[in-house]
């Protein structure tokens, strides 16, 4: 076999062979004002992993939109939450979506969780020239199913902008509102009743919405949640059976539930 032949099941090498790389990072003297997307977080709850994000994107002091979906279903068992520059992050999500499905269909088996985790690290490393210039920086969160457990166990990973990957034991947050959210999650995990890891879906969703409400009080780039304008978060859960979306209607219902 030729060394130039694409690696079996690897979508990026297929694109490279056809001279269609997903993005080309070129050095630039000056950076434009960038659209930024914050805030995202994930935590283990009683039924799996909950991953959530507000829906605001900003550029400097300008609110670009309050309708961004920052928690993206990559495939039936993987979630990506993006914090940073959406232009780069959405492209990474698209590469991962196509790559994971390409591998599954062409090799007739799903990609393992470690390989999925590394695939995102690889994209972050390939984005290094942009990161070093301070533009196109992405600090994502990833959740996937670990099939070495039976039933498969949802796991959370986070990354630094250079591509280092870390596993989150209880919770993780990224983006400009993450400081507030991590503090509350830490407090709740140590002293809360119930702790996030013991919550059911309704409790976990209500807790997640409240986290964003508080974060938005301290961080103007976090959009928060406003039931009066029907502005909710993007929330998805990963159970041992796969990914499920939590709709705006469900969020409204859970938020109004009495304790």
């Amino acid at each position, binding site marked *: 076999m030729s060394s130039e032949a694409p690696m079996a099941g690897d*979508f990026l090498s297929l*694109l490279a062979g056809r001279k*269609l790389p*997903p993005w080309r990072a070129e050095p630039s003297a000056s950076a434009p004002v960038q659209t930024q997307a914050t805030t995202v977080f994930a935590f283990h709850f009683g039924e799996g992993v909950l991953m959530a994000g507000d829906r605001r994107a900003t550029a400097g002091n300008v609110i670009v939109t309050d309708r961004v979906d920052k928690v993206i279903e990559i*495939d039936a068992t993987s979630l990506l939450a993006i914090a940073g520059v959406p232009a780069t992050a959405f492209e990474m999500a698209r590469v991962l979506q*196509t790559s994971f*499905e*390409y591998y599954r*269909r*062409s090799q007739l088996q799903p990609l393992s969780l470690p390989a999925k985790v590394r695939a995102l690290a690889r994209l972050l490393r390939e984005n290094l020239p942009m990161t070093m210039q301070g533009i196109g920086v992405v600090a994502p969160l990833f959740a996937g199913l670990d099939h070495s457990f039976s039933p498969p166990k949802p796991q959370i990973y986070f990354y630094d902008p250079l591509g280092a990957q870390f596993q989150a034991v209880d919770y993780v947050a990224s983006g400009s509102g993450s400081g507030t959210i991590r503090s509350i999650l830490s407090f709740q995990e140590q002293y809360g009743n119930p702790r996030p890891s013991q919550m059911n879906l309704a409790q976990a969703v209500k807790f997640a919405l409240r986290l964003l409400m508080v974060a938005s009080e301290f961080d103007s780039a976090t959009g928060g949640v406003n039931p009066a304008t029907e502005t909710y978060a993007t929330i998805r859960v990963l159970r041992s059976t796969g990914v499920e979306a939590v709709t705006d209607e469900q969020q409204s219902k859970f938020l109004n539930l009495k304790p």
Partner: protein
Amino acid sequence: MTEEPYRWLEAVANRREYVRDQLKGGSPALAASLSDGILLLGVGGGQSKVFELFDRHALAGLGHPADIEKIRQAAIDAAHTEAFTRAPEDVSLRRLVGFGLSPQLKTNFEQIFTAPFLVELLLVEIGAEVEKDLLLRLHFDGAFQFQSGGVMVAASLPEPETAAKEWLARALAQKTGRREAVDLLLQAWWCLTENKPFGEGIPGEADRQAGWRAATQGRVVEIGWLARKSPRPARYETLTLAQIGL
């Protein structure tokens, strides 16, 4: 020199005969468009007859496993490249086959010093409505026929294939359930493999059902299902006989 064109024609005719001979005895593949989705069915050794290609596309066929694999891989490569560089909605069966697979099959078949593909294939695309379902029959020489909805059969010989298709189209009319559709597809599969007639003299339903049950012992009934409505982009799933109550 004057005899060269004649030699080429003779060589191509010989190849056609050779391919048909090689495909003889291959296990037929069948597809049916139903109200909730498209069924594909084959009986083989497992992951060898029915395959997912893309979000709304699937393939089933008979032939040499290595050749089916080459076609499958080429279709998957083309579909994913198209989806990534344009959009998943732009992946279409017409373009995939008309501009990709068919010319390649034709070229391989007519270049008499290369090996022809030993395949007979069915490709399907699920639409928003039954009328927009696309079923495509692709032959080893690159020839293909499209059809909106209905039933499609890929067998090694054209006459029994047409008879099975016509019988299934009548038998499946007004039937929407997956269970009864799979049962009928398996009855047609059994009649094809046992060279039973589809007109006068077709075995009774009980015999056909007993026939396919006996003939599939020790083999894998591969069932692919493309759902018309799904919360996810990927519509394909594999089913077992037990899952659909057979």
